[in-house]
């Protein structure tokens, strides 16, 4: 009888989860390092489940859809300690899940990618923003959901140029990733017609981020550090290491706004984003996790939703079929950014608008009006097809 009913509506999708017993199981892994990155602001200290909490919400969303399609999603989280080998962990995880969302530093991600190359598992990079992973070090089995440094820098530059704040004082931290961000900002300035009037380096001389009388000292340090600068419109700080940038707003010698790593910050997501139906997702996230949603949470949510989107379109949980669909011309995903997100086929980077936030509100969303492109305005952010160094293998 059940069989007959199913046959009768066989053209559509089985209505009620009568077949739940033999549902297609789709396992998604989440691979990250243990511990959280330090932040200057106590308010911004990431939760221990930063990132994976977003993936968990997407699993719930996927399962709501999955109950109509007889697909069931599960999430397996693996956290690596300092001395643990990423290749081994990735290989073990790939035995159980065909898809792995990775929040790993660049070198770890490459190790995982090369280990999994012949195992048929797909990696979705939700954490690393390094351009080289999409350029000279790109891999055919890695899809990049996180934006790149250059996408973030371009998004900021477009807004500053639109605002006519074209003279930048660039302050760069002394760590490698600060320098990489500064490279992206310099490139963005050249691309969109801003001028870096001077560069300064803020040396990290060590010391604690939290002290009992820190504010007094900072109030003396920051004005002196920024004095005698040539005329400028905005101070742009490159401080991914969280050493100084958050000390700059309201403390610069000249009364100037701050952008980059503090002040007006480019990011893929923010808890204040409520446009394009995002409020429903923010509500779902807060209900599930009792905290606000971060950019890393959103990147992981998007990664898991991309898998859900592909499995529902292909009606398959097979990593090869899903991977082919994601890389194909018919894939797009809705992620509360006001337009569909697609993959750049030359390096598997997800195209996405970038939010500019001041810590409490979304100030603007790039690409800005007037920055045109022959294929997609989203390709005005980051390295474009003609510039790419990626050869997918």
């Amino acid at each position, binding site marked *: 009888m059940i069989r007959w009913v199913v046959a009768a509506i066989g053209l559509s999708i089985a209505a009620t989860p009568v077949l739940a017993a033999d549902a297609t199981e789709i396992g998604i892994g989440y691979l990250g390092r243990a511990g959280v990155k330090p932040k200057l602001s106590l308010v911004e200290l990431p939760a221990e489940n930063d990132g994976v909490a977003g993936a968990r919400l997407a699993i719930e969303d996927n399962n*709501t*859809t999955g109950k*109509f*399609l007889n697909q069931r999603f599960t999430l397996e989280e693996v956290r690596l300690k300092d001395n643990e080998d990423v290749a081994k962990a990735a290989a073990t995880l790939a035995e159980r899940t065909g898809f792995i969302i990775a929040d790993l530093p660049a070198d770890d991600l490459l190790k995982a990618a090369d280990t999994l190359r012949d195992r048929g598992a797909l990696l979705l990079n939700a954490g690393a923003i390094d351009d080289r992973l999409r350029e000279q070090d790109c891999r055919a089995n890695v899809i990049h959901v996180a934006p790149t440094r250059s996408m973030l820098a371009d998004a900021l530059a477009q807004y500053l140029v639109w605002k006519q704040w074209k003279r930048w004082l660039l302050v760069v931290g002394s760590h490698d990733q600060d320098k990489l961000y500064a490279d992206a900002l310099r490139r963005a300035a050249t691309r969109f017609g801003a001028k870096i009037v001077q560069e300064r380096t803020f040396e990290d001389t060590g010391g604690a981020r939290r002290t009992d009388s820190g504010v007094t000292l900072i109030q003396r340090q920051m004005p002196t550090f920024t004095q005698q600068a040539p005329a400028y419109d905005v101070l742009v700080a490159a401080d991914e290491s969280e050493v100084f940038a958050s000390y700059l707003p309201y403390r610069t010698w000249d009364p100037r706004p701050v952008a980059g790593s503090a002040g007006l910050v480019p990011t893929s997501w923010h808890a204040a984003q409520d446009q394009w*139906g995002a409020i429903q997702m923010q509500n779902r996230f807060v209900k599930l996790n009792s905290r606000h949603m971060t950019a890393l949470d959103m990147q992981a949510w998007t990664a898991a939703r991309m898998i859900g989107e592909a499995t529902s379109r292909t009606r398959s949980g097979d990593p090869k079929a899903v991977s082919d669909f994601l890389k194909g011309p018919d894939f797009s*995903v*809705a992620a509360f950014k006001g337009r*569909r997100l697609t993959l750049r086929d030359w390096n598997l980077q997800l195209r996405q608008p970038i939010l500019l936030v001041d810590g409490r509100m979304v100030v603007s969303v790039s690409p800005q009006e007037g920055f045109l492109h022959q294929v*997609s305005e989203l390709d005005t952010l980051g390295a474009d097809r003609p510039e790419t160094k990626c050869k997918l293998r």
Partner: protein
Amino acid sequence: MRMWRHCLISGMALWLAAASPASAFIAYVSNEKSNTVTVIDTNNWSVIKTIKVGQRPRGIEFTRDGKFVFVAVGDDDSIQVIDVAKQEVVDTLPSGPDPELFALDAEGKILYVANENDNTVTIIDVEKRARLGDIQVGVEPEGMAISPDGKILINTSETTNMAHFIDTATRQIVANVLVDARPRYAEFKRDNSEVWVSSEIGGTISVIDPAKREVTKKITFEIPGLRSEAIQPVGIAMTKDGKTAFVALGPANRVAVVDTASHKVTKYLLVGQRVWHMAFTPDEKYLMTTNGVSNDVSVIDVAAQKVIKTIQVGELPWGITIAQP
């Protein structure tokens, strides 16, 4: 004298025609940001009243007797009832959290409400002002439509990307049809031969055969000089004869005119910015559109397929409903 009488009579007729309420309808527009509803007299296209309502008014619809207007006020988790004679809010219906769009059955007795926040469709008994039950659907339910025979309710879920077919008698889902990303609105042809579902992010209209419950055709839109990402179909309005459909294309700032036989776009009409939803005047002479970003309503002459008028309303106009005054 005879001549004179003839002139007088034809003159009278002309005068009567001009004064008769051929186009004298009343339109209610929900303004999502202002928390108001604008009332427009279609006789001279003027705003005659602005009614204060609850927070974030979106879905809006006349009751079948034309005496009341329901408006979903999402941030207040309820549906308010506006008395048309008094032009003020007189009552509140219970709904689930964050109601956005709703559909009224043919008799006007049962209201089906899409509650975006908790993946349910809530069923409300209008007379008793009571909640009859909930139906679990996909993530972020939005679009709602009832089939001409009243047997099937369509609900679209924005993140699940499906049109759920719900049997109105048993209140069970009987089929789920996958459509393109972020389905926003559903509309049946009057003869029940097709149901159209707009996908805002996918940029398409899925034409579904209600008998087979499968997508038989996808309507796409191309506007020279516009990126495909800017074409985001939301509202759909079809003429009673089922021959012509109008599709609001959001930030493309245009309404597409679609020939429903060939499913081809015959014309794009430039309206205000970010066009959301639409409603015909009951005589189908005019179609009015809400333009979210430009805070106005465009009036389209349906026969001429031309925009003839723009009316300023409140901030972020969203929904619209029109009836006899």
